[in-house]
């Protein structure tokens, strides 16, 4: 049996030290929702795990501050919240952003 070991210090995820590496436990939809909503004032986020594997997500994020921002800027804001996890424990994040509910 093979075991994937991530050598990572990715922020936010539950991490455990091991002898040679840090094992990163995959983020949950609830955790991602909480992180987005905690970091973007007034935001509401719906996060779906697309394949049940904890690494492909779709997030729909609505936030007042998105008004007046381009889509690129809106998405960058969300990517910024999740930081190094994008491309790490989160292999793929499909994003939909909206200014109003």
């Amino acid at each position, binding site marked *: 049996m093979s075991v994937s070991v991530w*050598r990572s210090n990715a922020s936010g995820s539950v991490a455990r030290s091991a002898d040679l590496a840090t094992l990163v436990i995959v983020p949950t939809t609830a955790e991602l929702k909480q992180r987005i909503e905690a970091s973007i004032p007034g935001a509401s986020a719906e996060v779906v795990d*697309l394949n049940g*594997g904890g*690494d492909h997500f779709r997030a729909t994020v609505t936030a007042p501050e998105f008004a007046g921002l381009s*889509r*690129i800027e809106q998405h960058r804001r969300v*990517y910024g919240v999740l930081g190094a996890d994008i491309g790490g424990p989160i292999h793929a994040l*499909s*994003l*939909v952003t909206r200014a109003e509910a």
Partner: protein
Amino acid sequence: MSTPEQQISAAITEAIAENDVLLFMKGTPEAPRCGFSARTVAALEALGTPFAAVDILPDPRIRQELSAISNWPTIPQLFVRGELVGGCDIVTEMYETGELAQVLGVEAPADAPDQPPLATEPGAPPLTIENNLNRS
């Protein structure tokens, strides 16, 4: 002497400057190696617009340097006239609203589908999974 990273970065900057419509993707337009890249290619092809593409898979430093230039963490990335337009989600959304055709300066063909055709489900796992965590 410039480092390999600097050379790659310069080559990326040059490619963006030289190609009006440039897609950085996993795989090639003929053989995309990720559902998100495939869908973005499908959107461009549905509009019949000529575009250039760069496969980022052959060298991990391509992706690293590209993201540093674009301030965008994911692949694919579509550039039009030197500006980042977005990734798969934004391109798909702009396709559906007609903005993509507008940005590209093309008329959407009368038979263009309402949504870019799905080569694969966007939620399907990519065919290759990279460990990006060792890159700083």
